[in-house]
């Protein structure tokens, strides 16, 4: 009934018009500007690359970068000590001594929040800056692949958006942008020799055999030969040429960690995470705009403290070596390092069975860490309460963090998001759409 009346009177609300794509790019620009929030629209990029250390499953913020040593045993368990960092007034968990010495390079955001405790939804929010809606939006990496990738002249040795080593899952990273913007997942293990990069470095097939069987393939390509000049087949041939260029060109050497000095490899830690950090450094050095290190194993419902004792030193070594190495090579100014998971973990320990000393999901308050690429170091943004359960100061929502990263990368967060489906979309949601926001992180940019 209502719709009928609305149609009869001929009124079109702005939102309806947007949704139905009546307004073109000009209309969108009019509606989408964030006004006071926006800096100059075409601010030059300060960062060239992002390394995202994705703490898959959600890391305990209170055992890492937001320790609460006075909260008591029910909150701290055995991890009730902090360590001074090389920045006055900033302490972190005592399991991260090497990172403590790099604190001047990074800023800790202790007031991250979105309130969601389900992995899928939280992963989506943290990586897209959006609440789930009817469309699946692209992750930050896919947006980077769109704006900094092949479409915009990127011509690097490796694909523009790389995941070490397995895709994060939970949702389709490229969203409605489609497969062209999906991450290239390396597979394999950078801590093994050779690092078998899926599709690029084959195990047990010699180069000679590769060449021999490629020749065999061409000799047996009877249908292709029967249809010379077919445009569909020519496109496949171009893909094949590109694929072989990746397999036999310098790309393979880029992924070859044995090219690194032994002491460098040791400094990062001889484990999958450490060598992934080293690999990520090699990739950004080669100009890859977005690298995700998908660091699994942080969904610690059970045996939490045993796992922390094992994994925190690994994190400490790999991430501190990465920061130091990037800085030493002059790459930290142009590389954003973004550490965090989909949420934090419940500050109060679950001692009762079946958890017997575990931490559950906590989206109300958690921590992210950013470094480099225009982010200041040695700062703390926001604060949580005495137990780490609630944000008390300066809430930061995923949209604020991602928007800040986009800005440093020279991507206009309020600009249009071009996409193959022709949907009218914006890079990040405008505040009037009801997305909670605490504002971008200008205090550390």
């Amino acid at each position, binding site marked *: *009934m*209502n*719709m*009928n009346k*609305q*149609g*009869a009177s*001929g009124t*079109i609300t702005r939102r309806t018009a947007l949704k*139905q794509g*009546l307004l073109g790019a000009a209309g969108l620009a009019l509606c989408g500007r964030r006004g006071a929030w926006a800096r100059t629209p075409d601010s030059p990029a300060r960062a060239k690359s992002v390394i995202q250390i994705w703490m898959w499953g959600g890391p305990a913020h209170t055992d890492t970068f937001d320790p609460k040593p006075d909260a008591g045993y029910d909150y701290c368990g055995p991890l009730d000590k902090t360590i001074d960092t090389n920045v006055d007034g900033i302490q972190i968990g005592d399991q991260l001594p090497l990172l403590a010495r790099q604190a001047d390079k990074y800023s800790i955001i202790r007031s991250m929040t979105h309130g969601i405790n389900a992995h*899928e939804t939280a992963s*989506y929010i943290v990586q897209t800056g959006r609440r*789930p*809606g*009817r*469309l*699946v939006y692209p992750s930050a990496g896919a947006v980077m692949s769109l704006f900094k990738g092949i479409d915009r002249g990127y011509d690097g040795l490796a*694909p523009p958006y790389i995941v070490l080593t397995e895709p994060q*899952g939970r949702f*389709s990273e490229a969203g409605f942008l*489609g*497969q062209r913007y*999906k991450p*290239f*997942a390396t*597979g394999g293990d950078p801590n093994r020799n050779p690092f*078998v990069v*899926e*599709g*690029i470095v*084959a195990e047990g*097939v010699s180069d000679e*055999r590769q*060449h*021999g*069987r490629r*020749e*065999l*393939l061409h*000799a*047996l*390509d*009877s*249908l*292709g030969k*029967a*249809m010379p000049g*077919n445009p*569909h*087949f020519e*496109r*496949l041939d171009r*893909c*094949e040429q*590109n*694929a072989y260029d*990746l*397999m036999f060109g310098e790309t393979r050497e880029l992924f070859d960690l044995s090219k690194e000095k032994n002491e460098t490899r040791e400094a990062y830690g001889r484990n999958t995470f450490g060598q992934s950090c080293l690999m990520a450094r090699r990739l950004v050095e080669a100009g890859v705009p977005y690298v995700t290190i998908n660091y699994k194993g942080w969904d610690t419902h059970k045996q939490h403290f045993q796992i922390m004792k094992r994994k925190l030193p690994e994190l400490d070594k790999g991430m501190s070596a990465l920061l130091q190495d990037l800085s030493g090579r002059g790459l930290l100014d142009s590389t954003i390092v973004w550490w965090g998971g989909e949420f934090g973990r419940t500050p109060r320990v679950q001692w009762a069975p079946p958890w017997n000393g575990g931490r559950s999901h906590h989206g109300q308050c958690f921590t992210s860490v950013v470094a480099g690429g225009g982010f200041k170091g040695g700062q703390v943004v926001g604060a949580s309460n005495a137990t780490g359960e609630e944000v008390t100061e300066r809430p930061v929502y995923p949209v604020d963090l991602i928007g800040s990263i986009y800005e440093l990368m020279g991507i206009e967060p309020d600009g249009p998001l071009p996409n193959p*489906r022709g949907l009218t979309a914006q890079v990040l949601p405008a505040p009037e759409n009801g997305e909670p926001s605490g504002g971008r992180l200008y205090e550390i940019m």
Partner: protein
Amino acid sequence: MRRLLLAVAVLVPMGACGADAEAVRPFEREAQRPSTSAIDSLVLPALQAHGIKPANLCSDEVFVRRVYLDVIGTLPQPQEVRQFLRQRRPNKRTALINSLMDREEFADYWAMKWCDLLRVKAEFPINLWPNGVQAYYRWIRDAVRDNMPYDQFVRELLTSSGSNFRVAPVNFYRAVQGQKPETIASAVALTFMGTRSANWTEAQRANMAAFFSRIQFKGTAEWKEEIISLDPAPAGPLDAVLPDGTPVHILPDEDPRRVFADWLIAPGNPWFTRNIVNRVWAWLLGRGLIHEPDDIRPDNPAVYPEVLAYLQKELVAADYDLRHVYRLILNSRVYQQSSIPQSNHPGAEALFAQYAVRRLDAEVLVDALDTVFGGAENYESAIPEPFTFIPNQQRTIALADGSITSQFLEMFGRPSRDTGLESERNNQPTDAQRLHMLNSTHVQRKIEGGWRMRRILQAAETNRTEAIQTLYLSVLSRRATPSEMAVVEAYCEQDGLSGEQIASDLAWALVNTKEFLYRH
């Protein structure tokens, strides 16, 4: 080694040994066949008028592979190929078409196609949830398998009321991206009229939305159960206008959805039949008579309006039996043409002067690899509430839930089932796909680890030539030509590679040919 291969290829060029014409020219058949198809009598003269020579008829080898892939989304087994090639009766192609439509894979494959359009997925952003997905999928697959008349199929989807677990077709409304009447109307227009409401006037959109303005969604105490019903106490009668401009007065106790559905499926309504016969044509031939098939509008005319009209008339006369339309198309010479063009006219492909090559669908491709080598993919659902049990030997075309994640399927362009647009399925090749096929451990393991491959290897110990032919029949649904056999034999004779490596290289080469990767 490299020099040796090239030398052999030069010595025995294609077509030089004229022992068996079919084997030497594996793709086309020179002989003409009298056609009784009305489609042919409409298309062939039109091509002639354009000065376009149509392609030759495809060979039996090409036909058997093509019709398996197009009709049941499945590669034929070597023995099925052999059996078909052996047959000498003149109507064997028709007989094969008929028998394929009775197979379980027919239901699997076309249920998959319908689930793309009807957006069957558990999570994000459709959120049917696993129980709803299973109920809806079952219903769709049963409808395909039992050949439910198409008008009845659509009527049930549009007019059902009840629980999403018990009255499965109500999930149509739950699988729309939003519960607003205009959102539902636009999904109905896209799916069943093949038209995008974004191209309509605001008044037209509002008119159509009125028919879906009394739907209610209500949760129950059961986890993720939802009741779809009509507003039991509407404010009064509804004055609405059908898409053809006819005004209707709907009383409070009438279901506006029924009024709309009755209009939609009425035999004289061209919107209804044009959409579906054009889609079937596009599904079988790669593009619609109207293209894109879900973008029908006055300024996007059909290339052969008479063919469209003919198929519409036939569908109504056959009481909306979709398989009748499939048969008409599949038995035509237009469908059975070779993909090798006889004309370099730039519009030849769009005018159906040859069969258009296109890459296998993601699901069909991974199933084909498993069929050839004897392996299986393991799928699992990460979505609880409740977890979906997926058996180990599950074929990919029979997966119910579009939310099942698989890197391979996403890489090869499986539709995300978010919008119901045909263009969501993306069969364009990418560098990443090529890398994956050429050099991934996933494909290498499939080649080396499957039981069928081991069997072929065993057979090679007693009769190598026959084993090679079996591999050819498995992968390309035909025997190797003499010149191909010479190339392969030469590869087998080289030093430094084990028998397993040679067999694996040959299999690798064959699954990387265009002939394997494309429908042709």
